[in-house]
């Protein structure tokens, strides 16, 4: 799960310093909440998706939008029908179904939602995981929190694999077809699978604890430390760009 978020590529986003990229991501998230017109918001979102897709490919852009599609569907199904005030767009007799304001509100929220989600996923699509960790360390994420995150990353594939293996083995032991089982029976089967997966996960902790202790964790003289992000050049220029890009978008939305 954590290994397939990075998409190899050579675009400018890949050469951008991850620390500046994180700042740019946060500033863009703030930008999406600025009081701009719906047209400007939609244009900026489209531009961000276009630039991002140029670097990471259209498949990634589509996958991101597809992953949030249930939420988008929820917005389009519920929101326009809950705003009763404004210019009616669709009416049945005297009953107003959709108003212009309701539709605009839904579209604004959807644009914001797509924009923020896409900008956030771009960070992980264009930065390798250990560099994200080093970036967070650079922003003074505490050592222990960083360690917990790193360890969690090592656990995720292990737990996911263990769970699928255990559930497969439980399924193989049952003669009855999975599809034909009743919900209650399927739920009953979930408990031993979860218990086995948790026991396997818990049994892995002592080994990891021992290896941490061997590396001097918790003592003054640790035998391991974090790398630094010195492979990137033009850090100041990148930070400057990270500030200029959202500012330029805002000025453009004010002028045009």
């Amino acid at each position, binding site marked *: *799960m*954590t290994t397939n*978020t990075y998409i190899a590529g050579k675009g400018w986003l890949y050469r951008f310093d991850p620390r500046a990229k*994180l700042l740019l*991501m946060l500033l863009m*998230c703030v930008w999406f909440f600025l009081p701009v017109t719906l047209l400007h918001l939609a244009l900026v979102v489209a531009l961000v998706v276009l630039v991002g897709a140029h670097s990471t490919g259209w498949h990634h852009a589509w996958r991101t939008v597809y*992953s*949030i599609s*249930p*939420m988008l569907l*929820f917005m389009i199904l*519920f*929101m326009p029908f*809950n*705003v009763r005030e404004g210019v009616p767009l669709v009416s049945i007799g005297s009953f107003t179904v959709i108003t212009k304001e309701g539709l605009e*509100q839904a579209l604004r*929220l959807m644009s914001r*939602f*797509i924009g923020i*989600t*896409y*900008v*956030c*996923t771009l*960070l*992980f699509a264009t930065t390798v995981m250990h560099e*994200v960790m080093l970036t*967070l360390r650079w922003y003074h994420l505490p050592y*222990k929190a960083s*360690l*917990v*995150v790193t*360890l*969690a*990353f090592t*656990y*995720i594939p*292990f*737990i*996911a694999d263990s*769970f699928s293996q255990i559930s497969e083995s439980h399924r193989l032991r049952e003669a009855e077809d999975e599809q034909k089982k009743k*919900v209650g029976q*399927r*739920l009953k089967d*979930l*408990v031993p699978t*979860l*218990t086995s997966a*948790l*026991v396997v*996960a*818990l049994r892995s*902790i*002592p080994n*990891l*604890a021992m290896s*941490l*202790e061997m590396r001097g*964790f*918790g003592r003054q003289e640790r035998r391991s430390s974090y790398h630094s992000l010195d492979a990137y050049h033009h850090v100041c220029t990148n930070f400057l760009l990270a500030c200029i890009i959202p500012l330029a978008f805002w000025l453009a939305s004010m002028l045009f």
Partner: protein
Amino acid sequence: MQQRRLLLTSLFSALIIVGAYLRFPLPPVPITLQTLFVLLAGFLGGPAVGMASTAIYLLLGAIGLPVFSSGGGLGILLGPTGGFLFGLLPAAFLAGLAGRYRNKEEHPGRYRLLCIIFGLGATMIIYLAGVPYLKLVGNLSWKVALQAGMLPFIIGDLLKLAIATHLAGTLHTRIDQFLGQVLA
């Protein structure tokens, strides 16, 4: 002791992340096992481990890692379902209060009862944070917000609470042994 708690926090963070992707087809809506592991983190690790695991999970989701069941990024946290995610933090704390019960071995029944009581409280906290947030962000009426964000999930959440209580009753000895080993 501290590094063992740290490892337990990492493990539960990973379990919450994996749980968001494990879907169980239950009518009327399929459930994910994310809240089950949040409750379990509290029941087994106590308030500190429960809250830290959940905070790490939310942090990873906020910076864009697709750890939520609907993806990742600040957009999800600030979107209509963000309240349910923020509600996980106080829920983990409340569930953790059951994990602080000391006589689990002597009175397993009481421990399970505490898990059910605090687990119910934790589930209610998630709804208390999630439904008004959904109403506010989605500009919905109370009726629609309750229909979309609470009613279809009640059965699933009660089942998850029952499973989490059962698992906590089965696994607490192993966790206590693990945490106690360093003290010895």
